């Protein structure tokens, strides 16, 4: 019985089918908001309001020819997209949306799971670097190098800003952090600076404008994705979509007070809060232009990291006063 339930969880609800449906819905939402901000229509005709457009894109990619470069490392080249999708799907299991009891730690919710989640979410960057490296073409090598260079910029501010609310709540467990802020919602306001920094760093992690240098279309053709085609590219696209959901789920759990209310209401809160964060991400995407790789690193270390440290100071001072 328990095995059946686990299989059901893995395949249907917090598992693949739910992820597939929800991440394509989030991609649709992002594209529609981006288009409306630019006074265009966005996806319109596939399905009602174009909801099926990302699904149609993935199905189309699955049907295309798969080309592997001659000098590429075949095993690694073929395995990386699958591995990437597996990693971000695992990240979703740690979201405090379902199947947890705040009092009792379990497999999907334990002290320290915020650190595990941040670590799992930094793996896709390495996977993208490896993807660029094993493709052995000029453009993908440059793309891979840029992916790693960018990681030196945004990882530290992201970690620092996410740790702020954790310190304030006094726990390293996502479910407890969310629980803490659900009971004291006013304490979310001092964390606003951290929220802004985390949203900008999430944009950099997801490699969207202004930080989409690694796969900048007009400069290095496809960057890390240049040599990928067909099914592997479809899996990479699905990986970026699920990464978006996982990242915004993390931010919603830490900064926006989590997803209270059990199974159905929790799911509704999850949808609402992650769509809000994705709206902010689309807004930043529409508002700015791409910046150069050296400017990313200097921007991250000159502005983001000091502000994140400042946020930590504020949190520590507040904790001292409130105590």
């Amino acid at each position, binding site marked *: 019985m328990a095995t059946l339930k686990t299989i059901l969880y893995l395949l249907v609800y917090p598992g693949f089918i739910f992820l597939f449906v929800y991440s394509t819905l989030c991609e649709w939402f992002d594209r529609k*908001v981006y*288009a*409306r*901000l*630019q*006074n*265009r*229509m966005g996806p*319109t005709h596939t399905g009602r309001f174009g909801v099926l457009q990302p699904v149609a894109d993935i199905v189309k990619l699955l049907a295309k020819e798969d080309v592997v470069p001659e000098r590429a490392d075949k095993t690694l080249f073929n395995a990386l997209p699958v591995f990437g999708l597996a990693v971000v799907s695992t990240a979703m299991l740690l979201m405090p949306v379902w199947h947890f009891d705040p009092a009792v730690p379990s497999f999907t919710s334990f002290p320290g799971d915020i650190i595990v989640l941040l670590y799992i979410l930094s793996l896709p960057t390495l996977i993208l670097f490896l993807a660029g490296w094993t493709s052995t073409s000029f453009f993908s090598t440059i793309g891979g190098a840029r992916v790693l260079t960018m990681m030196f910029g945004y990882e530290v501010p992201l970690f620092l800003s996410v740790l702020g609310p954790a310190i304030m709540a006094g726990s390293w467990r996502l479910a407890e952090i969310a629980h803490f802020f659900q009971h004291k919602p006013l304490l979310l306001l001092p964390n606003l600076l951290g929220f802004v920094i985390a949203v900008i760093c999430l944009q950099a992690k997801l490699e969207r404008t202004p930080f989409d240098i690694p796969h900048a279309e007009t400069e290095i053709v496809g960057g890390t994705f240049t040599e990928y085609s067909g099914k592997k590219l479809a899996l990479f696209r699905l990986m970026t979509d699920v990464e978006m959901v996982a990242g915004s789920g993390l931010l919603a759990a830490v900064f926006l007070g989590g997803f209270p209310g059990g199974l159905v209401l929790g799911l509704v809160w999850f949808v609402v809060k992650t769509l809000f964060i994705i709206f902010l991400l689309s*807004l930043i995407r*529409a*508002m*700015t232009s791409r910046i150069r790789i050296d400017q990313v690193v200097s921007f991250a270390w000159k502005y983001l990291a000091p502000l994140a440290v400042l946020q930590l100071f504020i949190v520590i001072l507040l904790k001292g006063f409130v105590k």
Partner: protein
Amino acid sequence: MRIAVFLPELLRHLFKKPATVDYPFKKLEVPPGFRGTPFLHPELCIVCRACERDCPAEAIEISTLNEADKKFRMIIHNDRCIHCAQCVDSCPTTPKAMDIDRKFEISAFSRWDLKEQWDFVKAVIKPKAPAGTSSADSERPTS
């Protein structure tokens, strides 16, 4: 140097109707002078062949079907036509025998579907008023 200077404009457009026209479900009106596809009014043509000579793309072909009965055939190759309307400008008759309409959705699956043909009898030039030059002479080169 201000941050987010584009933001108010973007947010305002979130609530406006998109600027895109949902073609092909909705179509845009083309203005009256639009140069679409050329066609012939066969009852007015005097077969001076000015249009055939002046066409930059050699898209007009006039051939004689029967010399005695003065029957001619004009074929307009719409796959070669560049829609410049020079044929209309070169046509010397009043009213003009070559005309251009406003149709632009003329794609077909094969170039042979794009040829239009008219078989007609050569028209007689109506007598002109004696004073004033007409536009039917002097345009023709003397080759």
